[in-house]
């Protein structure tokens, strides 16, 4: 039996692994995709204390190497279920693993708009990462969907490459920083489409346009764009655990700053839990908090 099973090898999960291993516990981390989590999409991380600038890939790789050097076992499998009890049973890739404690660090993923053919056209005009894909849209017209900081930053980034950037937002004001919005207003190739929803993607094998619907007049119009960048936030992926921990209405695991889920021996760390700030530092902090709580629980068990 393993002391602690961690679900997810992102920043929270790997930070938890480092703390638990250094406390002398055995650790197995399950990851369905690859280590690193969301940060691997970030070209430059410049807000992690003590590190002036690092690529998300290098950060994630450093974390991974640190955890594996300490003895972390990383299993490439999706966790399908966790069963509570004196011994926790974790089902992953069709096999059952036993542990004294479990840390859920499942993270979050990009929230889709929910449009027809959105998934099918991802990579053929639909993108969730302007800094990754923006360069492929040089001199083309694109639309950005969203009103938060990410959407504003994406629009600003894309305005340097693209012939035209439509920023489509369902409200009349942005949630993102006013400074960013002001900078966008000065850009000649950026046009705000406010109080509007994107209701349809046009094009067969690739995006040829989008249809936006004005929320007030109900009027629909077509925007001729070859790219649709969706920046409407993240969503969690915790349904598999809904029977052992409480989820809020958005699907985040209900847990406080102590990472306690209310189920003894099961902890939630990082972006997957209810919290106000979802940053690299808070994910790492949660990893430490959850790991030390799990270690204390193992001593009692």
């Amino acid at each position: 039996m393993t002391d602690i099973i961690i679900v997810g090898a992102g920043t929270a999960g790997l930070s938890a692994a480092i703390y638990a291993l250094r406390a002398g516990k055995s650790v197995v981390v399950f990851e369905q995709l690859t280590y690193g989590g969301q940060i691997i999409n970030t070209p430059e991380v410049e807000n992690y204390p003590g590190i002036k600038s690092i690529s998300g890939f290098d950060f994630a790789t450093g974390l991974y190497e640190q955890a594996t050097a300490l003895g972390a076992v990383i299993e490439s499998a999706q966790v399908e279920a966790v069963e509570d009890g004196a011994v926790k049973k974790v089902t992953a890739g069709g096999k059952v693993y036993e542990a004294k404690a479990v840390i859920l660090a499942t993270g979050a993923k990009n929230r889709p708009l929910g449009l027809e053919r959105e998934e099918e056209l991802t990579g053929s005009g639909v993108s969730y990462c302007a800094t990754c894909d923006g360069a492929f849209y040089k001199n083309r017209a694109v639309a950005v969907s969203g009103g938060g900081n990410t959407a504003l930053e994406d629009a600003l980034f894309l305005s340097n490459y693209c012939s035209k950037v439509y920023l489509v937002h369902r409200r009349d004001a942005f949630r993102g920083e006013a400074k960013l919005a002001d900078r966008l207003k000065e850009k000649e190739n950026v046009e705000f489409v406010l109080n509007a929803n994107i209701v349809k993607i046009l094009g067969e094998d690739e995006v040829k346009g989008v249809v936006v619907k004005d929320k007030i007049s109900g009027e629909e119009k077509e925007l001729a764009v070859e790219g649709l960048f969706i920046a409407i936030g993240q969503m969690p992926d915790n349904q598999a655990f809904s029977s052992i921990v409480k989820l809020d209405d958005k699907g985040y695991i209900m847990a406080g700053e102590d990472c306690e889920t209310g189920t003894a021996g099961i902890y939630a760390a990082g972006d997957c839990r209810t919290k106000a700030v979802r940053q690299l530092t808070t994910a790492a902090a949660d990893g430490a908090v959850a790991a030390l709580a799990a270690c204390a629980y193992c001593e009692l068990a």
Partner: protein
Amino acid sequence: MEVVTLTGANFEQEVLKSDVPVLVDFWASWCGPCKMLSPLVDQVAAEAEGGFKVGKVNVDDEEMLAERYNIMSIPALKVFKGGEVVRESVGMIPKDRVKALVEGL
């Protein structure tokens, strides 16, 4: 199996005129998910017992190739058979899905 670096100069010979299917990885050095996927592609190549080839296109060096094959997001994997794209995938995927791309062709 060795992974071939593909360029505008050798693409036709190595990929389009290949006798066996070719798995092509479109990537860039600034792309984190590409750097995650790349070693998995290498592993699939290393474990292969023939039957297909593996090559990589750096989209910054080979803009023409990226444009010709309509690359709009990377990492992008495309499987060429008889000069045509027969399978493709965009974004980071686990190793078993990389493997599945070249199986049963």
